[in-house]
């Protein structure tokens, strides 16, 4: 099998439960041109270098469209791109403004102050499993928990979940570059429509928060910070869409992948139960070993870039396969081993460089609290099926369901 078809095999649903042998094959050619013109980068140092390279753009408008991608520019006519898909200086300005009510330097305690709320939410969800012997970790826990968290953080009414869930699913499906189902072009169009709908919903909500502000992030963003620069109303809506989607469609996979990995490694599960502090390095190892964002398929070369003995030509699409770099034996000793105490864990699970995951501190805290409590409270948890059924998406990868049997819950 040549490397030309490897990426197609990776995005194929058949590879979803275990793409790692294919990544190992991909790493034999660190920078591999695929037959459709995509350059797949799969080794640690090459990915890390490109994450810091200003010649690699996140803005799809820099792309020379390949066959079937002619609608990419049309897509951008819906809502303008969020900072996730912008380059400096616009990226920097919008991310800085979004950070003001979220983290340092202006709001260093926003996330750590949520710890108590998070613990209460987790307790409540596990209490709901008390009289049961089976649960779907996704539906009963890993999906509802991050939704509660992001709603609380942003100030989105939790009872609207049914409405925005449908839009969120369509937007996330639009990130799927695979050929399955109705095809990538149709998925992108559906995602564009959903993004508009969600934007309209959030615009109304932002207006409500402007009139009657609360302690949440949307209120703070809508109010701005005095006379300093602020987001335009449209930028605010686009940022709110990004935060709502990113805040719940990735953490669900981090928690589910975490529980699956713990159930496959009973020693780690036992250690976590006895030693809750282990959750901190364990979650980092999880981000290396089973990252919820497997690859970044939306970068474009702004110039000819020499990397890994290959010249990526200007305008070419570049995929950074983070999950493969995380298993690179030239960077991580024994990379296919899940080692919850691993030190020096400079994983690529949250990306790197200027687009390093905005919500990383919150995702870490959610996963630490969730996995510690699941490990502590579920009695003799075990997998019902292994591997579990996966979602279709190869980018935001995780189980669709995670059926688990157990012998009750301790308080």
């Amino acid at each position, binding site marked *: 099998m040549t490397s030309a078809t490897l990426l197609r095999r990776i995005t194929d649903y058949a590879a979803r439960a275990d793409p790692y042998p294919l990544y190992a094959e991909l790493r034999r050619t660190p920078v591999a041109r695929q037959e459709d013109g995509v350059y797949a980068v799969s080794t640690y*140092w090459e990915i890390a270098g490109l994450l810091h390279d200003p010649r690699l753009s996140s803005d799809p408008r820099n792309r020379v469209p390949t066959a079937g991608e002619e609608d990419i520019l049309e897509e951008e006519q819906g809502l303008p791109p969020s900072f996730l898909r912008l380059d400096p200086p616009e990226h920097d300005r919008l991310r*800085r403004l979004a950070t003001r009510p979220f*983290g*340092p*330097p202006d709001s*260093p*305690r926003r*996330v*750590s102050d949520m710890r108590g709320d998070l613990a209460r939410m987790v307790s409540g969800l596990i209490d709901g499993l008390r009289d049961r012997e089976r649960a779907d970790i996704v539906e009963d826990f890993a999906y509802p928990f991050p939704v509660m968290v992001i709603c609380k953080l942003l100030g989105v009414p939790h009872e609207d979940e049914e409405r925005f869930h449908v839009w969120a699913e369509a937007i996330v499906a639009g990130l799927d570059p695979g050929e399955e189902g109705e095809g990538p072009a149709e998925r992108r169009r559906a995602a564009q429509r959903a993004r508009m709908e969600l934007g309209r919903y959030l615009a109304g909500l932002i207006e409500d928060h402007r009139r009657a502000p609360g302690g949440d992030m949307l209120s703070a963003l809508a109010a701005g910070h005095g006379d300093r620069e602020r987001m335009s109303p449209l930028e605010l809506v686009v940022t709110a869409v990004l935060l709502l989607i990113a805040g719940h469609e990735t953490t669900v996979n981090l928690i589910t992948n975490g529980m699956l990995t713990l159930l496959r490694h009973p020693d780690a599960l036992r250690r976590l139960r006895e030693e809750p*502090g282990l959750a*901190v*390095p364990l979650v*980092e190892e999880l981000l290396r070993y089973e990252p919820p964002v497997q690859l970044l398929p939306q970068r474009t070369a702004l110039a000819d870039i020499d990397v890994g003995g290959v010249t990526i030509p200007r305008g070419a699409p570049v995929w950074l396969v983070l999950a493969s770099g995380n298993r690179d034996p*030239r*960077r*991580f*000793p024994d990379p296919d081993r899940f080692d919850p105490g691993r*030190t*020096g*864990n*400079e994983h690529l699970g*949250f990306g*790197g460089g200027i687009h*390093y995951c905005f919500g*990383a*501190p919150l995702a*870490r805290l959610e996963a630490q609290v969730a996995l510690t409590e699941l490990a502590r409270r579920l009695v003799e948890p075990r997998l019902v099926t292994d591997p579990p059924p996966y979602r279709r998406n190869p980018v935001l990868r995780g189980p669709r369901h995670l059926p688990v049997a157990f012998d009750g819950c301790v308080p």
Partner: protein
Amino acid sequence: MDLNRCEAYAQCAFQAPDVFAMHGEEALMYEPCPGDERREQVMRAAASCPVQAILVEWPGGPAVPEGAATGARG
């Protein structure tokens, strides 16, 4: 703190706000000898640093070279 490694991701300032603080977007200020009550915060900060720039050592305990980047190239 290995400030040659630090890239101002600010993860430490989220995890241990009593020990690490961002001054503006790029300058990091930190308490070099935080008390034992800050230990958990510091361990969280060290583990979450994307470039493993935080070296943790507690008096009386073994050095915990969180930043000893195995396999880092020179």
